[in-house]
């Protein structure tokens, strides 16, 4: 894990902040200095909706070393109430409780640890709402 990267992405990872274009109204995540639709640099920070619905999901049993301690875990694509879509883990429930179309809310969690004494990567996951 690279400290500058974690620092650089802190507003996106910790606060779920993307951008909104003041010229064409397009909303986009992650952040960018330019609108991802019209390329205008007239953009401002935009806080993502913190609730949405789960479109697709799967349970992962085999993953990278830094996330293996959480396996098996569920990951899915969530469509937020503001229509933006993101990928995230589904937590605080069992696999048999997870259904496509279910309502979820954003929660703040540990995503990965760089060993016992290393950096911790925090970010958002989703729980049933």
């Amino acid at each position, binding site marked *: 894990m690279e400290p500058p990267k974690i620092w650089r992405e802190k507003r996106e990872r910790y606060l779920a902040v993307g951008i909104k274009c003041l010229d064409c109204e397009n909303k986009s*995540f992650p952040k960018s200095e330019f609108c991802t639709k019209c390329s205008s640099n007239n953009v401002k920070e935009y806080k993502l909706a913190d609730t949405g619905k789960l479109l697709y999901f799967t349970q992962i*049993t085999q993953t990278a070393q830094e996330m293996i301690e959480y396996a098996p875990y569920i990951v899915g694509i969530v469509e937020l109430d503001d229509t933006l879509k993101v990928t995230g*883990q589904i937590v605080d429930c069992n696999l048999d409780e997870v259904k496509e179309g279910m309502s979820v809310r954003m929660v703040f969690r540990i*995503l*990965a640890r760089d060993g016992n004494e290393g950096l911790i990567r925090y970010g958002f996951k989703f729980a049933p709402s």
Partner: protein
Amino acid sequence: MKQNVYITGFSSTKFGEHYDKAASSLATKALLGSINDAEIKKESVQAAFFGSLVSGSNSQTSIGSTCIRECALQIPITRIEAGNASGAAAFQQAYSGILSGLYDCVAVVGVEKLSDYVIGGTIEKILGATIDYHWEFEMGATLASLYAILTKAHMKEFKTTLEQLAAVPVKNHKNGVKNPLAQFRREISLDRFLKAKRIADPIGRFDPATYCDGASSIILSSSKIIAENPDIKTKIPIVGLGHASDTLSLHHRDTLTSLQATKKAANQAFKMANINAKDINVAEVHDSYPIGEILAIEDIGFFPKGEGGKATEDGLTSPGSEISINPSGGLKARGDPFGATGIAQIVEIVKQMKGEAGERQTADFNYGLTQNVSGTGAMTYVTILAREEVGK
């Protein structure tokens, strides 16, 4: 004279676990093999393009430099990285090098050395770099989990069944038995696929192609070389090329039941070759997961959308049918050394064209196609080869 680009030599190492060989040794073996096959002096090769995803990234960036030193060559070298499609990407760059008039004879080498890495650790991280590393992989997704989502979307929309999906690797393993260069030359039963432990439901542990070692190389030559050397034994014209991209992350896409980059790349290649999907009788497509082959055969246009699973189950993609898909065994049975795969696909079509595919030979045909994909479809390359008589 219309400028064409021809394949005039080819070679592949066996794919599998080469613990005793470095990436550069594999690349050297393939490159010298293709030069020998082309029956040219190695000094005739004016430049080399290397397609590789990771080989070289970890400890040695310039894989091409090591390889050409071993070949005792001093020529311009370029390494091309386009994720899992690095091989086909390097091929297109080499093609452009000839078509632009810059070169008359160029080598393309696809190479990867993956058996040094651990599955359930480093491999997942390498694959994480072929999807959106920051907003898919670091959020917990793996390449397999995203293919699981693509699989579920297709199952939901078109009632594609697990049996239909498993028919893809069952067929490809059956084909792989007949390919001496394949990593796995044995059949796997439908039941074994269906009962395997799930790594990302509905993806079972036998579903993904395996990450292995290997290298493939091709010599490309200009029309001038073909005209000057009437006795040249291999001259397969490249008649269609396509390359398109899509969003890196699945969550930014409008549809999950087709790969837009494949559709676009295939359309470009068909337009350039002035043919359509019906003219193709043999194709090597990117079956890194079973759904990959089903999406490929639908998006290229071999079968209507939603019918790829049933077509495979009904044997319509098996050898001897109107369109033989992955007669080499595909990524699944041949093995998937990322950068080498795109070149190995083209090598298989060349062998089929020359009637050198042995027991897996496709009968009379004029056109063959390859499709090489990166990640979950962020980049797709399509290549169409023709028999010399029809492709002039």
